[in-house]
């Protein structure tokens, strides 16, 4: 997701696609850069509001000259401008270009773009947006390049363009049985004008060779299993030094004093350097601390161990997770807080209800914990800082490094490596600033900053901690008539504005205000909560706690009403209808147009029905086994999951099977959609079973994978079945894929545990809460 603070929204505005064609003909690239790079330009008041890719910083471009280069030998180089972190984007987006272009995938090479949004359009790789926002532009890129090749061939043969067509990696003139390869046409084609967007002839679905097929192997797959793939941690430069940093254990802490005498005695250690902290808000600034620079990583780590630092822990040293949970629970139990949606009269409806229910759910902080921890390498040559980093938002890193080094952004180059996982952590480039700062302290010599696992777990931008309290009332038929949800959690906004105490629209719009239920009286309240650590975004973000509470609660209601959970969920969702998110007081809707992307309860129902059917919902199971179901709308996609569990006599849980269904609109690369959902299932089980970060006296208590546990192979389901609900056609709006799989997993799992054992889990992680059967 994109944490759009007011400041960021003002920072830059996407206008690059408005005048692109004229610029290409008239002013070439410098004009393009000037037109899109002006900060602080705001939309005139009479311009319509922008959505989707148009509303992203630096917008988008479909210029084939930016994305495609064809070599004389026929090699087609396609730029991937989004970061690869496991979602397969380096395969899927270039595959779209290649298909429209008519390229043979075997002759395609992928070129990773550096961080340069004025040139490439938005590169902030989160929010499940890459395919959703760039399917159309990448189709245009491929089609435009193909038409330029066709025009070059027609000119070469002296025939009408209408007489030629593109085969596979060649242009044909069927009448004369002549053909020219892409490589033979490349130079002539490059001198032609780029066709206007409204002249582009896109392929029809029947003509696709790669799109929608799911047969394209990962471009980096073989490199990844042979040690050749280069992640951020693998970057190796001449005379490169290695650094680790001792950071303040508590947010806002400062170094009072340090003694490096023993550090400098360690062979390989060269220098000890302080990194300044920053006043709040945290933003993406480094935390500050003391860095040890050495000739190798191990020496730096040993050096850090020998550091003696006295810290002033500051105002957050009283942050203790049990007390904070109790405070949030208190807030959730009294009427009040910001009223963020209010329809009908909930309190009266609850009084008049035939039966009422209430429950409280707790989710702890989580850390993204990508297997590759944060890491970055920087060097400065002649006043130009060049960085290599695994980073989801390279432009943010570029701008921040420029600010810290007091350079213009064009004096900062950010090379984007493969990411060894991101999950939101690598959207925050604090580690890049550290590398740049330390390189400067070494007169520009290359320095790699490596975070240990302890660093990663202690200094994440944590998934928030939350208490969700829901009260509902039903009439004599069990039909829900009142829905009161109090949602309490420190907000992501606190990272950008430390006075923030209530959730911002993007958090509320993740399933809590826009809950699409057919209930007349709905009230959502958001009591205040203060952040005492850096709150960030973790895959699926606020959808995780919201879906856990809401989908657990519906299952609880069904059980108490003696109704089938799936049937009751469908009744609560209500009949198929299209809801305007804005009318549900969701002003965000994942940045997409409320008209183009209404919340379609028909689609939500359909994934529920599909997954129930595929999982054989309601099948008879032996004692100790049960099924649970949950559904959720997120990132403008619809998902539903059925989890089947088995709990043995000792309270040990295993998961024989998980089914998950998604409707994400057109499925561009079904193979990677499947892999993303498989991964989401495992991650959902991981956070539900094991995930918890706790604070004591302001500092994180978990140090490594012994304390912060992640699912391992033995914890994974025996079987995962992914079901993709097909879209009508490729013109249907695309939904997200990377994140929507996660939210339904934890509630479906806990609903299954209830079905198997009668035990209801309301606080995650499940850990050792399961009682012996």
């Amino acid at each position, binding site marked *: 997701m994109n944490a759009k603070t007011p400041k960021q929204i003002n920072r830059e505005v996407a206008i690059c696609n408005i005048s692109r064609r004229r610029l290409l003909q008239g002013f070439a690239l410098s004009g393009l850069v000037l037109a899109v790079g002006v900060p602080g330009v705001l939309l005139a008041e009479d311009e319509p509001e922008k959505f989707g890719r148009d509303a992203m910083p630096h917008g988008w471009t479909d210029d084939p000259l930016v994305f495609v280069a064809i070599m004389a030998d026929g090699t087609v180089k396609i730029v991937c401008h989004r970061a690869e*972190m*496991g*979602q*397969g984007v380096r395969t899927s987006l270039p595959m779209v270009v290649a298909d429209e272009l008519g390229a043979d995938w075997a002759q395609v090479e992928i070129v990773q773009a550096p961080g340069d949004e004025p040139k490439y359009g938005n590169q902030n790789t989160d929010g499940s947006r890459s395919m959703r926002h760039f399917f159309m532009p990448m189709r245009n890129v491929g089609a435009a390049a193909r038409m330029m090749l066709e025009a070059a061939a027609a000119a070469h043969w002296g025939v009408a363009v209408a007489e030629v067509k593109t085969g596979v990696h060649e242009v044909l003139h069927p009448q004369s049985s002549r053909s020219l390869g892409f490589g033979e046409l490349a130079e002539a084609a490059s001198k032609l004008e780029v066709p206007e967007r409204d002249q582009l002839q896109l392929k029809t679905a029947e003509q696709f060779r790669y799109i929608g097929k799911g047969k394209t*192997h*990962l471009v*980096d*797959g*073989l*490199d*990844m*299993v*042979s*040690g*050749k793939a*280069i*992640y951020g*941690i*693998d970057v*190796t430069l001449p005379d490169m030094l*290695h650094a680790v940093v001792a950071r303040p254990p508590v947010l806002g802490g400062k170094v009072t004093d340090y003694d490096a005498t023993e550090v400098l005695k360690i*062979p*390989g250690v060269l220098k000890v350097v302080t990194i300044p902290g920053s006043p709040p808000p945290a933003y993406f600034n480094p935390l500050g601390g003391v860095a040890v620079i050495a000739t*190798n*990583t*191990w*020496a730096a*780590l040993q050096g850090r161990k020998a550091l003696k630092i006295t810290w002033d822990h500051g105002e957050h040293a009283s942050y203790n997770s049990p007390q904070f949970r109790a405070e949030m629970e208190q807030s959730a139990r009294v009427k009040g807080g910001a009223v963020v949606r209010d329809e009908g009269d909930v309190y009266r409806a609850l009084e008049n209800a035939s039966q009422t229910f209430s429950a409280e759910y707790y989710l702890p902080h989580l850390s993204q*914990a*990508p*297997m*590759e*921890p944060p890491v970055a390498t920087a060097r400065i040559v002649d006043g130009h800082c060049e960085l290599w980093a695994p980073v989801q938002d390279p432009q943010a890193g570029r701008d921040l490094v420029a600010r810290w080094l007091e350079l213009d952004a064009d004096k900062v180059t950010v090379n984007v490596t*493969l*990411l*060894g*996982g991101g999950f939101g952590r690598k959207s925050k480039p604090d580690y890049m600033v550290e590398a740049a700062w330390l390189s400067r302290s070494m007169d520009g010599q290359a320095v790699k900053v*490596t975070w*240990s*696992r302890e660093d990663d777990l202690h200094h994440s931008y944590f998934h928030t901690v939350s208490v969700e309290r829901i009260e509902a009332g039903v009439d004599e038929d069990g039909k829900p008539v009142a829905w009161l949800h109090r949602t309490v959690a420190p907000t992501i906004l606190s990272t950008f504005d430390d006075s923030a105490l209530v959730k911002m629209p993007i958090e509320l719009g993740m399933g809590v205000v826009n809950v699409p239920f057919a209930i007349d009286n709905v009230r959502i309240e958001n009591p205040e909560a203060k952040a005492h650590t850096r709150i960030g975004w973790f895959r699926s973000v606020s959808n995780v706690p919201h879906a856990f509470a809401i989908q657990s609660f519906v299952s609880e209601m069904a059980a108490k009403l003696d109704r089938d959970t799936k049937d009751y969920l469908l009744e609560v969702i209500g009949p198929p209808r299209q809801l305007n998110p804005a009318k549900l007081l969701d002003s965000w809707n994942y940045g997409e147009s409320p008209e183009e992307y209404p919340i379609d309860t028909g689609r939500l129902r359909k994934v529920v029905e599909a997954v129930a059917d595929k999982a054989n919902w309601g099948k008879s199971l032996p004692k100790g086994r049960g099924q649970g179901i949950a559904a959720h709308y997120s990132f403008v996609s619809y998902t539903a999951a059925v989890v089947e569990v088995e709990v043995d006599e000792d309270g040990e849980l295993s998961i024989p099977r998980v089914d998950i269904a998604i409707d994400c609109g057109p499925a561009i690369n079904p*193979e990677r959609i499947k*892999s*993303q959902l*498989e*991964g*989401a*299932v*495992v*991650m959902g089980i991981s956070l539900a079973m094991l995930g918890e970060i706790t604070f004591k006296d302001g500092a994180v208590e978990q140090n*490594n*994978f*012994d304390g912060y546990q*992640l*699912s*391992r*192979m*033995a914890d*994974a*389901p025996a*079987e995962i079945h992914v079901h993709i609900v097909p879209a009508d056609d490729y013109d249907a709006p695309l939904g997200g894929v990377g994140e929507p799989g996660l939210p339904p997993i934890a509630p479906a799992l806990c609903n299954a545990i209830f079905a198997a054992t009668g035990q209801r889990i309301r606080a995650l992680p499940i850990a050792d809460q399961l009682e012996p059967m």
Partner: protein
Amino acid sequence: MPVLTINGEQRELQFAEDTPLLWALRDELAMTGTKFGCGMAMCGACTVHVDGQPTRSCVTPISAVAGKSVTTIEAISEDAVGKQVQQAWNQLDVPQCGYCQSGQVMAATALLKSNPNPDDAAINAAMSGNICRCGTYNRIRDAIKLAAKAVQS
């Protein structure tokens, strides 16, 4: 200075003898296929083979492998089983981010060398030391079975 055989080649390492093999491979020899994940032998990303045994290089000082033979991911394709494992991984498109997969391939290769036809329980037991945060476990299981078949045929 410890002398050891790495991927069939004799190497004399200059780093301090308490340096874990992981950091000697990565920082001294620029062999970066072996990954850092935890530094405490809890995630398996750094798995190499020492005299054929899967070993966590992040907690193995170079002094402890002097005179021994180390195989890393960079050379596993030269092993008949390792080659099949890599091909199975590619055929099923196992990786997501791919970062842990060096260690997964090393662990899976060692498993198949000791147990050519492992069942789910054997796979779970052998592979549970290797964390994949992206959650590719089900495909890893399938790929190990696919590789097992290929090795046998």
